[in-house]
């Protein structure tokens, strides 16, 4: 009996969590398979579920969707570029700070941490102004560079934590054998760091794909904006086709969710370790 009560209590917590988590997600799905009429009738399941909305999106058959494929390509291009560039910048920096113990490394780490702690929306204002000065506004590179700036501090920090745990004897052995820093980096460091690198690459990629604020500040041309900004355009008028918006939103939300779950093993271990220590 005691055991029964204890299990019932767990379910009493679990079921509300499930509803709370899934309701907004289910609502996206519900809208995306509804016709315009049934979307607005407030039912929990449409009378005639349809995939028509997705066909409309894929064929770009609406004013707001004329650049759908171009925008999804921009999102992909930007996300991949941010993932690769962040890995490039952060891996070298972490290696230099943690293994080479480069002079000034501590200062650079502090600068990175400082950037990490500034609220993102606060940095957006000066960043916007500076991108204007550099003449990068409306170029996809402005968003790529801004997102690399936002992603690399955490990336460096996590990689440095992981790197500090590698046995120092490896470096000594490599140095005695006359290895150059690049050889140590390529032959010893990279293979040992692979799980963390996967986590960080995924982190930066998702951060860029999901970003809205920086994207809509820095990019406004129809040909350069990512899908996130394109979705925001739907709100320009009051009688927008919400069922098409939700269908597009579902398409936009699926890749990051899939990638997150595919790399979850790396993500959870790799990304929470630092936070727990703090």
């Amino acid at each position, binding site marked *: 009996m005691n055991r029964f009560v204890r299990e019932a209590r*767990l379910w009493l917590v679990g079921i509300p*969590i*499930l509803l*709370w*988590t899934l309701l*907004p*997600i289910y*609502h*996206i799905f*519900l*809208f995306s398979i509804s016709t315009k009429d049934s979307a607005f*009738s*407030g*039912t929990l399941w449409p009378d005639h579920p349809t995939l028509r909305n997705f066909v409309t999106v894929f064929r770009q058959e609406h004013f707001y969707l004329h650049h759908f494929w171009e925008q999804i390509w921009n999102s992909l291009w930007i996300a991949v570029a941010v993932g690769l560039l962040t890995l*490039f910048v952060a891996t070298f*920096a972490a*290696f*230099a*700070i943690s293994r*080479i113990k*480069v002079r000034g*490394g501590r200062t*650079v780490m502090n*600068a*990175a*941490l*400082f*950037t990490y702690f*500034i*609220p993102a*929306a*606060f940095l*957006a*204002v000066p960043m*916007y*102004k*500076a991108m204007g000065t*550099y003449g990068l506004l409306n170029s996809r590179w402005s968003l790529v560079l801004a997102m690399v*700036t936002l992603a*690399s501090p955490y990336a*460096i*920090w996590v990689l440095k934590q992981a790197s500090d745990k590698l046995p120092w004897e490896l470096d000594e052995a490599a140095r005695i054998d006359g290895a150059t820093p*690049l050889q140590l980096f390529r032959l010893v460091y990279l293979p040992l760091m692979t799980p963390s690198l996967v986590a960080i690459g995924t982190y930066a990629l998702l951060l860029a794909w999901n970003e*809205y*604020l920086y994207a809509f500040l820095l990019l406004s041309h129809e040909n350069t904006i990512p899908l*996130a900004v394109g979705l925001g355009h739907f709100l320009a008028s009051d009688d927008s086709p*919400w069922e098409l918006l*939700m269908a597009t*939103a*579902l398409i936009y*939300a699926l890749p*990051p*969710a899939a990638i997150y*779950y595919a790399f979850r093993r790396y993500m*959870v271990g790799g990304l*929470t370790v630092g*936070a*727990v*220590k*703090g």
Partner: protein
Amino acid sequence: MAAIAIPHPAPAAPQRHLSWQAWGLIMIAPYVLVFLVFVLYPVSYGLWLARHPASYQTLFDDPVFFRTVVNTVVFLLVAVNLKFMLALFLSGFFVHERRWIRWLSVIFIIPWAVPAIPTIFSIRFMLNPEWGIINSLIFRLTAQEGPNWLNNPSLALTMAMLVHIWKALPFWTLILMAGRLAIPRELYEAAGVDGASPWQKFKFVTWPSIRTLYLTSTLLSMIWTLGDFNSVYLLTGGGPADLTHVLSTLGIRYIRLDQVDQAMATIVVALPFVLPLVYFMMKRLSVNE
């Protein structure tokens, strides 16, 4: 080729040390460049733009500003603390070893893993007073008209806070869960032998172990929540009548009006609060290095 290579002397030990340092500098250079070009210069330039007292005068005279500050403080105090109390509670739930709870934790992480814009728009439509699913349900269950959720400033801000909690709760629950899992089991077993109640176990074993993590996380979350633009902007757009703005959305509003000096002033106003917290966080992380 070999003949050319011979004249080069084999590097002496100190020189080789230097060359490792040189490599280190080359490797750290890309990030230093990113920091100088996209953080240090923009921030310095921004602060320089915000040097005019007139900007602050205009800001304080803006009728929206005072309300924005109040909203921001309420958002930070209420949303962040509520989020952490829930996260503390839920982390205790998720550490139970059941197959279905493990599955639930996988689902629970979705709000954090998916982008903000689809889900916040979805919630926005759910709250539509005429055809939203929430008011339809209210009407069906009680035969009464539901409230006009996003048209009442206090209600709209409350909804924005709920959106923030919906999105950020999974991450912090995960963090606190990791904190709980790091507590040695023997402590609970010993407490159980001594006949401790669940509450006593929490008070004397769990809380002392994760208190530091909890407080640090709360402070960190407060800084980051200051930068949470999406929860407010995508749900209410700052409306109705600009009454639900927080500092971050107000700053961006000034940018959209092409008043960058004004936008910077908005941010500078928050710095006396932000910088001590950032300093504190940096010290904490440096100690733990």
